[in-house]
């Protein structure tokens, strides 16, 4: 799946993350701004790439503004942004997520 349009999920509240998915050709790129960048930056980028892979994303830019969200929150925000981008609102593949 390639990104053709953009989508957003999440908020800038403390302990949340705002995720945008934008078109970007060639590969999956992750851009991270985080209040805990020093401590968890590498981990969050790896998590985002993993999640993208599970979703079957082939290219696109995942922009994350993280305010100290836990992994489960970041993952959920990426998935939501992804399905908003694809427009899929029913029959989500829960067993893969």
């Amino acid at each position, binding site marked *: 799946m390639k990104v053709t349009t953009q989508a957003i999920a999440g908020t800038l509240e*403390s*302990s949340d993350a705002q995720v945008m998915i934008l078109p970007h050709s060639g590969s999956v790129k992750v851009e991270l701004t985080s*209040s*805990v960048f*020093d*401590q*968890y930056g*590498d*981990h969050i980028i790896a998590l985002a790439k993993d999640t993208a892979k599970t979703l079957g994303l082939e290219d696109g830019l995942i922009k994350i503004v993280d*305010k*100290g*969200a*836990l*992994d489960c929150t970041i993952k959920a925000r990426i998935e939501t942004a992804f399905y908003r981008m694809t427009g899929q609102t029913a029959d989500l593949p829960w067993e893969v997520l």
Partner: protein
Amino acid sequence: MINKIGRDIPDEYLKNGVEPFQGIYYRDGYQYKKAAPTVRAYVKPDGNKLVDSIHDAVVKSGLKDGMTISFHHHLRDGDYVVNMVMKEIHKLGIKDLTVCATSLGKAHNYLVTCIEDGTVTGISTSGIRDEIGEVVSEGKLKHPAVIRSHGGRARAIEDGTVKIDVAFIGASTSDAYGNASGKGGKSDTGVLAYADGDAKYADKVVVITDTLVDGPNFPASIEGVDVDYVVKVDSIGDPEKIATGALRLTKDTRELNMAKEVAKCIYYSGYFKDGFSFQTGAGGPSLATTTFLKQYMEKDHIKCGWAMGGVTEPIVDLFKAGYVNEILDDQSFDLAAVASAHTQNHFEISASQYANPFNKGAFVNQLSFVILGALEIDTGFNVNVVQGSNGILRGAPGGHPDTAAGASVSIIVAPLIRSRMPTVRDKVTSVTTPGESIDIVVTDYGVAVNPRRKDLLAAFKDTNIPLKTIEELRDLAYQYAGKAKASRIYRPGRCLSRIP
């Protein structure tokens, strides 16, 4: 040298009588001679202490390069005094000063300019936040910053570790002879407790007020017999901003639930008896504890003998409702506390009376309970309230180490995780309060009792307090947040970890 809590204190800091931490009661029984100021006698009865401007007061005080000046922070974020004085000093081109403050924050940001150009090269304070905290964390201050608790600062002034050359004391009211008070005027601060030692031990004392009153301005927190000069300015500060900063009243369910557990710990501790005493910190859950404590007091017909501290509205409310007999006030945190300071049985105490470990018995030693916050807690129960996990200075020890060491039961209340940062962890960034003085840690995921306190563990055994070990709490925090990678720490090993 490795100190008693396993922190490496660089030898370069262990000079001029500075010792590594060797246990909280290591200096019990220590004998010393108090320091004394050099005083200019005012023998002739024609002495006029009023001077026209801060500029004139600075000049008359004889302030020179390399001296130490002091300030208090009773006006908190509304303070104009520090910036007004520093601007005059800056204009005069005086350099290499040490600022000995009771706390520093947003309102004192002109110090940033002064640090950057060498007007100020040393700082000793009981709190450091915002821009000043960042500048010092970046290493722009020439000499190491010394952070002492409120009691530690009072001790350092009285035993001569800190020698104040000129004290600048902002006061809500003063008479022309320098009898000054935190009460009345345009900028009412309730009390002037932290400036007491400054007035008694500084060589030169300048009172700065915006409200001159007829003498004698009694009761005076600062006595005219200790004051050299009085300056009247248009305004010393914005009293509406006294309440800003650390204070907030919580509606957060998580914080309220923690506060409930804290009150429960107090109730079952064995120390909850008629006439008990307590102090709470200014954090959300600490403040909220008062509400739940009241329910237990009603239930068992128990009254609090005295509440101390940083006084806040929730304490004043209990006092007014008759649940607390007396208030001992070293700082009025909000406008309700300021108003209450004018009433009967609300007493002002000095920083030394409050918490100085080197006098003949500070009030902290008579506390039954203290409820405090924490940025970080480690599995040795050591607490950090000063340095953020990224190394930036952003807090105040205040009376944290003093009250924890003095109180019969010291309780830390903090969420297990804050915006992904584990509060309970293997090792705190720096130690503000050593674990041997911490008895109970209350989090939103359980309560840990210091294994040293077998009496409390026994008392809580058959209650519904959700007991866990500190290691279990740490494991939970790491499980949810993931283990943090060690971050860049500015100036590692600064004396921050050294407890006086």
